[in-house]
């Protein structure tokens, strides 16, 4: 039971935050639950990072309790106030659904519970066995917890054997918080935290689909996500391991989703800022991804302002607030990282020069990764039929790029892939890196990618409805014309028209 305490810590904290942020009133219950978990993880990770580095506070149980207590108490206060003022949102009026949609909903619930339970059960019974989890993330967490600070001597000592000592530490701090909440060193409590990122991602994708393409398209793309085995079951990047790619995918996707709302509130900007700041402090790729999300949101706001839409100002303010939080976390990262000598790392940037980068990018080196990339994507074991058939879906129902979310989502999907391509151009063992990272890069782009899929499914559904309408109209017309023909009596001209 204590192993589950770590999940309750993050979920309770995040639930408090979603009550504090009025923007989440518009979200579905599923979307709110997904955001609650992500915000809880982001908040506690950021709080511990900042308090330990800038405040010199000791990383221990009381600090974790303080981090969780503040939003939980605030959220509880707001919940009580809403209950007293009877402003609790009324349950939505149930719309009638077709039989197929009802079956789909129950199927989604069944599959979500089954797959999430399987992932969680694996996490709660097996020790940590994945490569990066043991090499980097969980090892760093053990060193930080022992030292009681993010500025541990072992990170700064050039002689110590630490893999990737300058990698950002948000997820190791989350592991520290999970261990403190569980009150033990049992790594299964930590694994449970990663396992819950899978249902959180699913709820996020569902919410994204609902927002951009309606509830039926959301249902279908959530079912599609549930058919990809790699995301929940793979140990080297999926939810059964302790890699940081799944958390990064959730933070990046969640921040993007909040900022691309039609008319975001200020609280959406703060929530998006927390998620994007967490993305930046989760992995190195978080920096380009967070900046991309902010740039796309800024672009959307700029276009809305130029077109004199009322939403322009709200979008600009939300983006500005998110940018402040992201810049703050960038400052924290730079300040924390500067005294740490780099070692046991790929050192992409130590040999970096613009001319060699341009030369490598144009060379055949990155192109040598294409067979590896293809073998990863078309592996039925990893992706099922996903990459075999979704291109066909895009071919027959490509969403219109003239509509704003499509272009923005396409750019957000492309950025992690292009960043990986650029990194492959820089390393001599490009095919090896592609073989161990490509699936994880695809995962990072998961939320905008499934957003695009939702738009394609929406187009399919709209066209299907249009054709049904045309057919119904034609049948009505035929019925009417046959009716009027039967009413025409030869020689009688004053037959009244059949009302149309």
């Amino acid at each position, binding site marked *: 039971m204590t192993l589950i305490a770590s999940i309750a810590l993050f979920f309770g904290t995040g639930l408090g935050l979603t009550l504090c942020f009025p923007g989440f009133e518009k979200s579905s219950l599923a979307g709110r639950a997904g955001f609650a978990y992500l915000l809880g993880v982001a908040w506690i990770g950021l709080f511990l990072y900042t308090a330990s580095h800038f405040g010199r506070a000791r990383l221990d149980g009381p600090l974790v309790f303080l981090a969780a207590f503040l939003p939980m108490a605030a959220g509880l206060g707001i919940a009580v106030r809403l209950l007293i003022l009877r402003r609790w949102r009324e349950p939505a009026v149930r719309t009638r659904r077709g039989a197929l949609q009802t079956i789909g909903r129950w199927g989604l619930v069944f599959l979500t519970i089954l797959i999430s339970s*399987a992932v969680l059960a694996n996490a709660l019974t097996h020790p940590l066995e994945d490569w990066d989890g043991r090499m980097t993330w969980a090892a760093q967490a*053990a060193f930080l917890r022992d030292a009681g600070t993010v500025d541990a001597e072992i990170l700064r000592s050039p002689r110590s054997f630490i893999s990737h000592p300058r990698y950002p530490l948000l997820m190791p701090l989350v592991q520290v918080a999970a261990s403190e909440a569980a009150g033990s060193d049992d790594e299964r409590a930590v694994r449970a935290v990663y396992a819950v990122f899978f249902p959180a991602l699913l709820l996020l994708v569902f919410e994204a689909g609902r927002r951009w393409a309606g509830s039926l398209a959301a249902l279908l793309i959530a*079912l599609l996500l549930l*058919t990809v085995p790699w995301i929940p079951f793979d140990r080297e990047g999926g939810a059964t391991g302790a890699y940081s790619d799944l958390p990064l995918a959730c933070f990046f996707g969640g921040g993007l989703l909040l900022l691309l709302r039609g008319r975001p509130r200020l609280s959406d900007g703060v929530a998006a800022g927390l998620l994007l700041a967490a993305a930046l402090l989760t992995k190195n790729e978080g920096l380009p991804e967070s900046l991309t999300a902010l740039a796309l949101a800024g672009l959307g706001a700029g276009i809305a302002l130029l077109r004199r839409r009322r939403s322009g100002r709200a979008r600009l303010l939300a983006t500005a607030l998110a940018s402040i939080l992201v810049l703050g976390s960038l400052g924290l990262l730079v300040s924390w990282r500067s005294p740490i000598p780099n070692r046991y790392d790929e050192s992409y940037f130590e040999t970096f020069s613009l001319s060699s980068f341009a030369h490598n990018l144009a060379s055949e080196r990155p192109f040598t990764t294409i067979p590896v990339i293809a073998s990863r994507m078309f592996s039925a074991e990893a992706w099922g039929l996903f990459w075999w058939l979704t291109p066909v879906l895009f071919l027959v129902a490509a969403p219109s790029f003239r509509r704003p979310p499509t272009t923005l989502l396409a750019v957000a999907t492309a950025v992690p892939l292009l960043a990986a391509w650029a990194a492959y151009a820089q390393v001599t063992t490009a095919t090896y890196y592609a073989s161990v990272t490509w699936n994880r890069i695809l995962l990072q782009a998961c939320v905008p990618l499934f957003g695009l899929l939702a738009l394609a499914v929406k187009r399919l559904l709209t066209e299907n409805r249009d054709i049904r309408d045309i057919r119904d109209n034609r049948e009505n017309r035929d019925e009417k014309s046959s009716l009027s023909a039967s009413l025409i009596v030869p020689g009688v001209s004053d037959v009244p028209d059949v009302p149309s």
Partner: protein
Amino acid sequence: MALAIGNCSRANNRDISADVIALNRASVLGLRRLRIGVGVSVLAVLIGAGAVNMIHRSWQLLAEAGRWAKLDSSEARRRSFGAAYTSAVDGIRRALPEDSWYLLVSPERTEADGWALWVRYDLAPRRPVLIQARAGGALRSPSGAGMPKWVHWAVLPDGEGRPLLLTREEALVRLKARDRR
């Protein structure tokens, strides 16, 4: 007469153009129907086949978890990594204080580099200094620095991949003997 012919041909033209429009509409409609049919089939195949696969794999994972549920943390580690390896790690954890530094000697074979990473995690938060055997039998860190004299303990692999805790001097003797062989 001419007027009648003209009227007749205009009526014919109108009929023909209406037919062409209807044909065009029908072909566009047919194409749209085909696209929708393909799209819906793709979705049905993806979701149907994928759901069956995922139910099967989830069930396997749940069944396996059921078998492991009775094991405590150390027994689960023993089953995952082997009894000999786990006992060796537990022995070192008892003997070596948590705040101590140790020399972690990497195995000779480069493909066994993962060994050092695995042992480092299992012995954390004890602080490792990585040492590798260089050409000529010299022992150096990967950066080329010598073995630090202030570190009194060393962990190195025995012949079967189990970590072995020795004093620095014992480790040096053992490594020199290994080089001679």
